[in-house]
């Protein structure tokens, strides 16, 4: 399908129409900061930095109910809530790349039903990054600033408005069903898209060059993990905020009736790998930090063919110390 053009004045009317049948999630401002939240007509913050709360949260929430259990005469009945139909507006290419990695991990072998069902009921509208944030290094990780595929719709701010490209039948359907808001794209729109994205990429590469797997592996080997352990303040924020991190724990709350919950976890915690006997395969924090890096840069690529880090820079933003990925890698390279 040919690319289209969306005048900024038409964006809100388009969303209002979409909101009639879908829950629209978009970046809005709360107390001054852009966050991904359900849009109820607030001013959009599409041009702001990528919100700190990643939209991956809508596929793998911090806490969700896997099922409820109700006991009667010694037998149980279970109920699961159906997923919500959503549209996420303004996801960035880095987060989209994270979702691709999660699709591999959660979709392979026995597919993870809670994740997969949310994926199936969510439409993803990606916005290319023409103005990268300070901590971003997507280009070095091969995950931005432009999205190549995997989206339902792709927006690029080319100045007078948005260039709109479809990437799936669902995307096409939206363009057709709401065609009154769109016009044909002009050649200069396409040219401008290329120009802006090339510029953005160049700027990101200046901060951190693209690293080969070998260089990264070596950087991990050379890092002094015991030193990192001394400085880490054990907040777990790096893995809780990371869009690729997906470790979770499962627990029951409620007897005899209750809920089985799934909540986000982090392999940096000592209890994460500790067995009931007390034995812990990764007993020291240094070992756990090293494992986290290896998982991102060695194990996930081996399993999925994609890096486990998308260069979104969030870990850097939340680190209480300086042991986040970007900082340690830069240190090791220099």
């Amino acid at each position: 399908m040919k690319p289209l053009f969306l005048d900024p004045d038409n964006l809100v009317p388009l969303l209002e129409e979409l909101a009639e049948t879908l829950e629209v999630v978009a970046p809005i401002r709360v107390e001054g900061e852009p966050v991904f939240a359900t849009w109820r007509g607030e001013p959009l913050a599409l041009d702001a930095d990528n919100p700190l709360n990643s939209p991956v949260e809508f596929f793998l929430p911090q806490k969700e109910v896997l099922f409820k259990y109700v006991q009667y005469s010694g037998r149980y009945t279970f109920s699961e809530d159906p997923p919500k139909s959503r549209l996420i507006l303004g996801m960035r290419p880095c987060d989209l790349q994270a979702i691709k990695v999660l699709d591999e991990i959660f979709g392979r072998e026995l597919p993870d039903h809670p994740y997969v069902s949310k994926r199936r009921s969510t439409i993803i509208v990606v916005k290319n990054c023409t103005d990268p944030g300070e901590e971003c290094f997507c280009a070095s990780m091969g995950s931005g600033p432009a999205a190549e595929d995997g989206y339902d719709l792709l927006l690029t701010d080319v100045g007078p408005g948005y260039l709109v490209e479809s990437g799936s039948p669902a995307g096409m359907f939206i363009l057709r069903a709401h065609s009154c808001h769109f016009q044909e794209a002009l050649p200069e729109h396409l040219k401008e898209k290329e120009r802006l994205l090339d510029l953005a990429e160049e700027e990101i590469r200046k901060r951190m060059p693209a690293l080969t797997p070998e260089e990264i592996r070596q950087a991990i080997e050379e890092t002094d993990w015991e030193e990192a352990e001394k400085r880490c303040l054990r907040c777990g924020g790096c893995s809780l905020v990371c869009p690729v991190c997906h470790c979770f724990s499962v627990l029951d709350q409620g007897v005899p009736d209750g809920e089985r919950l799934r909540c986000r976890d982090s392999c940096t915690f000592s209890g994460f790998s500790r067995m009931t006997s007390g034995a812990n395969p990764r007993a020291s924090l240094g070992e756990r930090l090293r494992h986290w890096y290896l998982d991102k840069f060695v194990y996930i690529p081996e399993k999925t063919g994609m890096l486990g880090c998308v260069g979104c820079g969030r870990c850097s933003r939340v680190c209480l110390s300086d042991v986040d990925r970007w900082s340690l890698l830069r240190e090791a390279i220099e």
Partner: protein
Amino acid sequence: MEMIATTCVYCGCGCGLYLHVEDGRVVGASPSPAHPMSRGRLCVKGWLAHDFVHHPDRLKFPLIRRGERMVRGSWEEALSLTAKRLKEIKEDSGPDALAVLTSAKGTNEENYLLAKLARAALKTNNVDHVARLCHAPSVAGLGASLGSGAMTNPIRSLLSADAILVTGSNTTEQHPLIAAHILEAQSRGATLIVADPRKTQIAMLADVHLEPRLGSDVAWINGILNLIIERGLADEDFIKERTEGFSALRESVSKYTPEVVERVSGISAHYLERAAVAFGEAPRAAVVYAMGTTQHSNGTDNVLALANLVLATGNVGREGTGINPLRGHQNVQGACDMGALPAVYSGYAKVEDRAAREKMAAAWGTDLPSGPGLTAVEIMEAAEEGRIRGIYISGENPMMSYPDREGVKRALESLEFLAVAEIFPTETTALANVVFPVASFAEKDGTFTSTERRVQRVRRAVLPPGEARSEWEVAADLMRRLGIDADYSSAEEVMEEIASVTPSYGGISYQRLGISGLHWPCPDTNHPGTEILHRDAFPIGRARFFPVEQPELDFDPDYPLLLTTGRSLFHFHTGTMTRRVHLLDRERPGPTVDINPEDAKALGVRRGQMVVVESAEHKLEIEADVTEEVPRGTVFIPFHFQEAPANLLTVKNLDPKSKIPDFKRTHVRIRRAD
């Protein structure tokens, strides 16, 4: 999904965070990047601040005691019974047979109303809260020397320090965001001096680690000050222009030579000198302190010694300097500011001061009691002796957090009436006549004041569970039943009243509290708030030096080990919330006693073995952890765990000046359990 901007419920750092809400449930939390202090970061408890909110143990209905059992009652029953019993006790035995213990976890509005309930409705000044157990010495000490008991500089100010002395603070575990600032300052070149008998994480990262014997703080602080004066590093101009009493102080500290200090505290002359020179030569030096300084039978003197140090070096009233008590609870500063203290009203006006009393009486429309009331531990003692017959406790767990647990139990059990407002059942609610289920921080509107005097909004994200209510509504309801005018339609209205009677909060209103909040003093609606105190003048005119002496340290040959208590990163205080958070509980599932390897060897104890820790009066059984983190002769138990409650062993031994118990130094002995 909604994102509600609010303030964290755990510690005094006061981080900004978003609660993630989906279908009326809090399902997540994330840091607020625009918050001027936390700047998009949180500690592990903050990241999990949402997790306890919907726990099935949440109290949902009022409970009323019928004999041995607690039975579900209606709000009307619970409130009318409480009002009736409190009134009866007041009429039978006088107002001072009653007491109110407020919550350092409650909002400012709640603390203000509960203090008003005590004074205006019950006519007693017996109102106090856990600040008594933590920073009462700061309020007393800094109040006397500087005219104000609060942290003098904002947290951000640490980034401009050239030297930071951290004493009695396990900062990376208790105040992680403040530790982050301190470590960032260090990476920018500041010299970090940490004084702690234990090898805590921040001590291990310090440039100079002083390891004083428990209880010897006055000695080494005076020793540092003495060296600074001797080397000519004191700030003569500042002393001359802004202080009084220096010559008496100089003479007093001259006794604390490095030899004397080494003998008393164990700190070598070499390290003492390094610390003194680093602190004295720094253009901007700051002192950060917490429980290791205050929780001693001479806690106020320890604070005065630190105040002497910063005053003598002119390190008050400027960026990168200051004396910074780190408040534990997220609103213990606010609870103090709101006058939930026996001797002061909100804003620290004294109840004994006739003008102040008349002003409050006019504002509240009733006469008020004039003599200062009892402090928290004194209230427990009075209850044990039958002088206090009825107590209202808000969000506090004296059974776990006060010293001498058995004494607390006797005290509470002997009361004729005990009402407790709580979010979870605790060891204290188990002893109540009436339990009010109240809202957690995620379920009410109000304000918290962090350790850096930043007044911030806490916002309702979801409805409270079952029939639970905001506690400010409960307090107002009780007041009305007791004949006091207390008609507020919102927490915001309560803050309007607070602002009208509290000069330092005069300019605080919800409208003005954006993401940055406002630092008090903020006297009027045009005032931008005050980040740094004492820039030009002290509230008392000139600051005062108070010479203090190191007391003899007592030792008991029958109980040769010293028990010191403290906290873990993963739990908060009595564990009511954090032990119900799966990930936090998993990190630290149970209690252990830290024993030095040499002591362990002498006792024949290995890691993982059960041991009995005994004081003269009590004993408890606990698992041993053998670690270099504690020095020989000292053992450490965190106080979060009710299965081995450290405060079973601690004794009152109150500081006469501030009535804080001697939590940090108890004589014990240890043997294997088998």
